[in-house]
């Protein structure tokens, strides 16, 4: 029997997060000293890179901006290459409280989830406190995931996730444009256990959201198409295996 403790990697994708990245890194280091930390600097054009160098944190730097999904995929590929057992992703904008991650991780281990999402809505099952655009979007994507996978996920766009090693490979192979609803549907349809755990998240104080005005219209269409493709791909993959 091997008594080696599981190797856990905390990955923080960051794009132009000079205002918050140092606080996030120090909070992660303080609250999870046993876990390794990787920041994926997704081609930031501000001082994020310099701050990370000064902090001495292990950083995977994209030479240009590849987008959120590619940043998460880099973290997954890194975890796969370095033989980690678990990957925890959290946002660099300071919305997530690293202190809650340990509870999320403990729940993931004890209940055997393949992917456990830190959910802002599963506790109250109520979107009314969110701004109108997000409220409509969250309900739409939640419905979409329910229709495509048969499972209700309340927070499809949460950046706080705990992933077990067995999902690294299917996630590293496919490209998910935002790593949200489409990835969730894909994993559920492949037979992986995906769950939610209640967390609280602060509102973004600095930097820009990755959702522009145009993307409020484009994103639902894009995600719907990707959910459909994820569904097809998962069925084909299951048949091949």
């Amino acid at each position: 029997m091997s008594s080696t403790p599981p190797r856990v990697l905390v990955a923080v994708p960051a794009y132009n997060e000079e205002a918050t990245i140092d606080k996030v890194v120090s909070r992660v280091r303080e609250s999870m000293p046993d876990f390794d930390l990787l920041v994926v600097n997704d081609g930031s054009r501000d001082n994020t890179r310099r701050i990370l160098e000064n902090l001495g944190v292990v950083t995977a730097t994209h030479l240009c901006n590849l987008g959120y999904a590619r940043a998460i995929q880099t973290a997954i590929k890194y975890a796969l290459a370095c033989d980690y057992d678990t990957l925890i992703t959290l946002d660099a904008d300071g919305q997530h409280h690293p202190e809650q991650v340990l509870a999320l991780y403990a729940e993931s281990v004890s209940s055997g989830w393949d992917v456990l999402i830190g959910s802002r809505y599963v506790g109250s099952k109520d979107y009314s406190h969110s701004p109108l655009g997000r409220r409509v979007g969250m309900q739409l994507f939640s419905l979409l995931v329910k229709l495509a996978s048969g499972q209700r996920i309340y927070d499809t766009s949460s950046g706080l996730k705990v992933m077990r090693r067995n999902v690294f490979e299917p996630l590293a192979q496919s490209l998910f444009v935002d790593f949200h609803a489409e990835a969730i549907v894909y994993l559920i349809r492949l037979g992986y256990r995906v769950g939610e755990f209640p967390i609280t998240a602060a509102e973004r104080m600095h930097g820009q959201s990755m959702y522009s005005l145009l993307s409020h219209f484009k994103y639902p269409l894009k995600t719907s198409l990707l959910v459909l493709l994820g569904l097809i791909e998962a069925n084909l993959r299951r048949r091949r295996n």
Partner: protein
Amino acid sequence: MFFLPTLAVEVILPFRAVLVLDLMGLFFLIWVLNLVRHNRLYVGYGVIFIAAILGTMVTLSVPQLLLGVTHLVGAIFPASALTLLALCFIVLMLLYVLSQLTLVSNRLAVLIQELAIERSRESAYATSRTNKRKDENSLR
């Protein structure tokens, strides 16, 4: 149904139009060849354009072939048939070019990711070695 071939024969392209279009085709052909020669157009794409230009020039120059194509696409006038085929070609090429662009962009993204991962692994290794040395020194 019976009057269609007769009508098509009557509205066949005049010699001057065929000549102008063939000259334009020749110009495009020379341009494409030159681009390929100077390595500014991938030979695979060049072949598609050369085949399309030569095909169009031959179709224009042989009246029976032009009539055949007109009937094949269900057009009354040869000009309409050629416009339809040109539109189809443009849509196909656009789709092909965008798919190639996506392919190249995906390859580039994978390269950037691999480079980032390799560099971060090296940096993680260096950090762990430094920490180990610090620990050893503090034990001494």
